[in-house]
């Protein structure tokens, strides 16, 4: 059937990709920058969905991995902006020389690598212990929140190292090019689209294969998988680490486009919101989180710009309505359409065959 093919994820993906590639033609600089930010969120959402939608592990702590990536990039940009001098907040805190943990971030390649490796390492460490001890379900969820609280409190408290609540901002250049000029923002946008596409495709390959089937198996019956000879904790640890690394990448892209990172962006509430993107878009599909992240954030921006005094009503109502009427998220809507269409086709063919049999 051609119609089914049309709804094939691959085609949806290609259409979205083309739209995204042509977006700069009809969006203003500011809107393009916003879209770029949403796409950075979409990257994170894919990683989160890998963990939640496919493996059934709900983390309410992904803000922290996003934040670690973002801070790594921001530290480099900050050092580049001050030209090797001490950042201003350190000077106020009475520091006289660059603290040790900042030194590696002078080099862009190291900073980028650490932006992926640090979140991955923390996730691996925590995941290894946690999953091996068979902490699962809501216990893991709360544990991930405790992790957020620990790290955010540390980030806020260590003002001399992290800039405290204000976070890091006021960046100037990257590789010598201005970070804020429309041209470099355009480049960042395309990089984001590119990274999104790469991560999407690789995750798709991952979940389509046997590996993905094992993940779904763990989600639906962890003990059964264990009895079949798989070790769920290894798989879970791997996926958790992977999704943390993806979150770190998303964080780096976020900082480049938004130009600021602060603890408000990585705390409990943003972490919960990240889960909402995935849920709203449709978990267990890879395209769902992408749509969800862009849709929720666009709605948030749209509502708040149009009704700055009442927008939270609309946002709240949207969550409630989607959950009640679209239990499988926005992508669930497509599947429903597809199924209905298929049913109609089926009944049509039955009628046809009936009419044939009458002859």
């Amino acid at each position, binding site marked *: 059937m*051609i*119609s089914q093919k*049309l*709804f094939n994820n691959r085609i*949806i993906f290609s*259409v979205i990709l083309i*739209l995204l590639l042509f*977006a700069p033609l*009809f*969006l*203003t600089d*500011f*809107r393009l920058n*916003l*879209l770029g930010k*949403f796409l950075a969120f979409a990257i994170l959402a894919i990683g989160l969905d890998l963990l939640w939608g496919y493996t059934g592990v709900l983390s309410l702590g992904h803000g922290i991995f996003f934040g670690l990536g973002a801070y790594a990039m921001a530290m480099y940009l900050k050092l580049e902006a001050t030209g090797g001098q*001490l950042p*201003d*907040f350190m*000077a*106020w*805190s*009475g520091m*006289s020389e660059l603290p040790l943990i900042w030194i590696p971030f002078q080099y862009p390649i190291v900073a980028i690598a650490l932006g992926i490796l640090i979140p991955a390492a923390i996730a691996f460490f925590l995941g290894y212990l946690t999953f091996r001890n068979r902490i699962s379900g809501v216990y893991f969820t709360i544990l991930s929140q405790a992790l957020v609280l620990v790290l955010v*409190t540390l980030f*806020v*408290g260590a*003002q001399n190292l992290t*800039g*405290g*609540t*204000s976070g890091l*901002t*006021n*960046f100037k250049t990257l590789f010598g090019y201005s970070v804020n000029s429309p041209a470099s923002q355009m480049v960042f946008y395309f990089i984001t689209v590119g990274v999104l596409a790469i991560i999407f495709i690789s995750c798709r390959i991952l979940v389509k294969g046997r590996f993905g089937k094992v993940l779904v198996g763990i989600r639906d019956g962890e003990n059964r998988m264990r009895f079949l000879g798989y070790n769920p904790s290894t798989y879970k640890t791997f996926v958790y680490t992977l999704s943390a690394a993806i979150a770190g990448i998303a964080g780096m892209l976020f900082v480049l486009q*938004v*130009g*600021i*990172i*602060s603890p*408000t*962006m990585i705390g409990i509430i943003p972490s919960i919101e990240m889960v909402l993107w995935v849920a709203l878009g449709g978990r267990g599909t890879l395209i769902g989180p992408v*749509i969800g992240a*862009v*849709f929720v*954030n*666009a*709605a948030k*921006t*749209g*509502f*708040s*710009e*149009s009704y*700055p*005094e009442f*927008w*939270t009503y609309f946002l709240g109502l949207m969550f409630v309505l989607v959950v009640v009427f679209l239990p499988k998220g926005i992508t669930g809507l*497509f599947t429903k*359409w597809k199924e209905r269409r298929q049913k109609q086709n089926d009944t049509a063919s039955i009628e046809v065959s009936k009419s044939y049999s009458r002859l």
Partner: protein
Amino acid sequence: MKKKLTLFMLMLLFTLVMAACSAADNAANADKAEETNEAKPTETGSETETATEESDTIKVGILHSLSGTMAISETSVHQAELLAIKEINENGGVLGKQIEPVIEDGASDWPTFAEKANKLLQQDQVATIFGGWTSASRKAMLPVVEENNGLLFYPVQYEGMEASPNIFYTGAAPNQQIVPAVNWLLENKGSSFFLLGSDYVFPRTANAAIKAQLEAEGGELTGEEYTPLGHTDYNTIIAKIKSENPDVIFNTLNGDSNVAFFKQLNDAGISSDDITVLSVSVAEEEIKGIGADVIAGHLTSWNYYQTTDTPENEEFVANYKAEYGEDAVTADPIEAGYFGVYLWAQAVEAAGTTDVDAVREAAKGITFDAPNGTVTIDGDNQHVYKTVRIGEVQSDGLINEVWSSDEPIKPDPYLEEYEWASELSESLE
């Protein structure tokens, strides 16, 4: 089948359009925006005219947190700014044009402040932004206004160490609030200090200055504690305070924490007679939330109180109450937000245009009879000359002045005038 495809494409387009221009796009980008608007034209009431025609209004941005944890404080400043705009408009506006406020919500989230400031400057092309409360929100907006060469009027007292050419600071610099307060306390209340603050940039920087000052002037530091923002249990801290028994607690707590701290201090049986608390972030509005009964007798340091005795203030308080209800109170940041709008309007009148560079040049030395007295913009650092006032909280929730600097004090954000602060300001060179 075709229909389905179209439907689906429409859905997708809708998603994108939502991202692209869910709120009204400014018409300056009309030709670009038109294409995206085709699918789903969106408009808001206030932004329908096109800028290609010479408009008869001047747009200004108002950017405060109307939701989230900071909304408790910022909403009132937002209201005061709207009141000032309304008053100016009733008196004929600026340059013969009406001022049109574009309201945005910073949502207590600093990256959102940056995003919205960007939106106001690029999409709406506002002449200036009035906004911010926390230092973090100002720091988030700073690169945006500098990059776009916009203007920001920031209405809250802060820790100093900043003077952006694109920001006008209408709140107090540290030498207009904290330094005189410490001096006054040393003279009148005793020399042993306990420093208590929320864990963020303002308290930490302020306390660094206070410590240097205490050392230079013979004060004694008995303790220094910081609590995470939103902390609600102060029993342990109060126990520590009790065992140190200082003369004065210098309080730089922010927001909700003040309510918890004062209520629990009162419960622990410590009254203002035992230990005086001087707060720099508690004004009339916060007192309403704390309850006047538990904070009465403690001190504050500001540039303005609702009871400040000037004819301008009488009028301001009356107008504010007429607009927002008899129960509404005015406070220092509210007043600073209010006169900030007037200062901007005067500067625009003097410049004859809303062009940022011209306005900035014209603003130097402009004076205005604000409710707190005469304020003057200092051309050197774009802060304002203000009178310092120490006040005591009354049982009706208002604050009575117990001391004031006789004349407006020159702002000194980097504390360059003070010997003991040389190390602090030098580290920034």
